[in-house]
């Protein structure tokens, strides 16, 4: 069984890919979140209380309407997507008019793309919507105002098509928009353009809801702007900082629809492979009488493995420890050691290496 977190598009693709690869997905969504229905995927609305265990056999404790259930899963995929931030602008937002494809407007339409944290696909979505409006109302004038036109890869052809249809693109930074009048200074040339738009469409700032909640449950870290921190490049493409937990979806990286599809399928594949190959890392052990409870290990471990137990001594959680040995080195009382790895072994290793060098 593979635990898939999130209610958006990425989790759909990931779930479908997991089924295709012969495993059973369990999709988890927070109670207050909306999610798209998938026929043969068991979707559960609940709160993840704890996620213990190692890759290949995790135990997830989920509270589903006040009743705690335990699930045994092989791997987890966090496929949470960004959602538009509810903002109180009076203009129409891009996401709200996506479904309405018979928009009637004959005047001038301005699409403003200058949100602080936009989604990566907002520009191509805006261009495609502009073409569609232009087709439905041939005599309307459409301006798209944005500092940069970000239509990546093959979307560039849509951008050319839009220009051929007479949609005007203005690269502008400062846009004064007050009571129906708009003053736009074209940043390259500095010329000022006055527009009286009949309809203003803006793109929204994206945010990741409940990122901290998921990060705490899975004990993985976040970036400051609230996105999930990816594993370093040396850990592989869709990994997080914890073995067996994989990241895809726009909550970790900015993705176009096609990229989102690839990343979700890759994460699903890695998860299915990971659940079949359990990982047995020997975790560090703390010798309780030697421990001076000085919290050094708790502070230096970036994987949140050590913690001070009720006896006031340090204890290292077997599931989170990735046996990197940093705490073994830094513990002032040398209370932490591995099965078979301690200060003396390290010292002897140095001696042997140098002895055979001198032969």
């Amino acid at each position, binding site marked *: 069984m593979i635990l898939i977190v999130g209610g958006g598009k990425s989790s759909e693709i990931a779930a479908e*890919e997991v089924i*295709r*690869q*012969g495993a059973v997905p369990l999709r988890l969504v927070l109670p207050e979140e909306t999610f798209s229905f998938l026929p043969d995927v068991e979707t559960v609305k609940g709160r993840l209380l704890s996620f213990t265990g190692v890759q290949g056999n995790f135990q997830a404790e989920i509270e589903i309407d006040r009743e705690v259930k335990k699930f045994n899963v092989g791997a987890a995929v966090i496929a949470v997507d960004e959602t538009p931030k509810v903002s109180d602008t009076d203009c129409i937002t891009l996401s709200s008019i996506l479904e309405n494809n018979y928009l009637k407007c004959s005047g001038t339409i301005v699409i403003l793309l200058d949100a602080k*944290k*936009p989604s990566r696909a907002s520009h191509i979505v805006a261009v495609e919507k502009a073409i569609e409006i232009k087709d439905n109302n041939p005599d309307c004038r459409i301006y798209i105002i944005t500092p*940069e*036109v*970000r*239509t*990546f*890869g*093959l*979307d*560039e*052809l849509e951008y*050319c098509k839009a220009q051929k249809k007479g949609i005007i693109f203005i*690269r502008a930074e400062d846009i004064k928009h007050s009571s129906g009048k708009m003053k736009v200074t074209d940043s*390259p*040339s*500095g010329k000022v353009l006055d527009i009286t738009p009949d309809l203003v469409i803006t793109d929204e700032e994206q945010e990741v809801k409940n990122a901290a909640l998921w990060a705490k449950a899975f004990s993985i870290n976040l970036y400051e*702007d609230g*996105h999930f921190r990816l594993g*370093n*490049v*040396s850990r*592989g*493409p*869709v990994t997080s900082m914890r073995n067996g937990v994989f990241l895809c979806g726009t909550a970790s*990286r*900015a993705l176009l629809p*096609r*990229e989102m599809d*690839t*990343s979700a*399928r*890759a994460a*699903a*594949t*890695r998860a*299915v*492979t990971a659940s*079949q*190959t359990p990982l047995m890392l020997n975790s560090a052990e703390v010798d309780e009488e030697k421990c001076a409870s000085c919290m050094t290990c708790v502070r230096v471990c970036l994987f949140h493995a050590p913690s001070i137990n009720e006896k006031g001594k340090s204890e290292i959680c077997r599931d989170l420890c990735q046996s990197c040995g940093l705490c073994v080195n830094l513990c002032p009382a040398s209370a932490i050691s591995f099965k078979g790895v301690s200060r003396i072994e390290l010292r002897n290793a140095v001696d042997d290496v140098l002895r055979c060098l001198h032969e």
Partner: protein
Amino acid sequence: MYEVGIIGGGAAGLAAALELSRRRVSSVVIDSDKHIGGLSRDLCCKANPVCQRCDACSPVDIRREVRKSPFVTLISSSDVIDASGGPGAYTLSLQSSSGISEIEVKSVIVAIGSPTFDAARDARYRYSDCADVLTSRDLETMMISGNISVPSTGKTPQSLAVIQCVGSRDAKHGAPYCSKVCCKYSLKLVKRVRKELPEIEVTFFYRDWRPSDREYDKLAEYGKEKGVHVVRSRPAEVIIGSRPLVRYATVEDEVREDPFDIVVLAVGLQPPQNSQKLASSLGMECNQYGFFIKKGEGAYAAGCCTGPKDIRESVEEGIAAAGKAAAFLEGLQ
């Protein structure tokens, strides 16, 4: 007899092979080049000095793991000239220096990648006539060798120009699409060069700043640094003088010609050659530019041959294709 035949040993192909070997599925990787690795083979690490997540090292790690895996057989310097059969039983005919041979495989992953645009085809930048006009790949090999010098004089360069969108967003040269990766790649390469030569003056000619991750204002920020100039314009041409002169129109519509020690052309990604023939023989389709379309069972495509993308996305696509192939093979039993 192998379970999966992977055509092309680049980042995507090897990632697929590695993922399959993790699932104990045997695969054969056929690469036309003498050395396995494809486009991402000789990329230098862009740390300045902190890792810029350019992903150049992940193909290297994957290649090393693949070499150790017993499930993968590597066949280099041999081309797949023809393929036949259907899902579950394909035969690939290989042509190598020792003649033609046949290989039976149950499933195929096409990962032939896509070559970079040959800068000589765009005569305006005089790539073939002037030694100091380099493509980003030439600069890359110079970085790997460790000494950056002006090709014609051998001295260390004082000024560098980077021209974006060479061979992409350019209908005349058959590449009207945007190659998506050169923006991110050029900025990281320039930062790495400036770590090596802190005093170098860099001018960045770009049309639209299209970053990879959420680095929307990174170029503007970098433009504020001393010695970095960011110009939104597409240079008209390069004039050969004692030093190459870049002729371009500035934002205030005034034409200028600035001399640079080195001019770097950020070359885009071209569609894979004769992909139509290989596609039809495997029952796959290509779009109007020659990029593979991912559809159907048995034969899958991954990497740059399905469209320009960066290393991370190619590796992800390779893993996804491997997953699909493995699922397909399980379906066969």
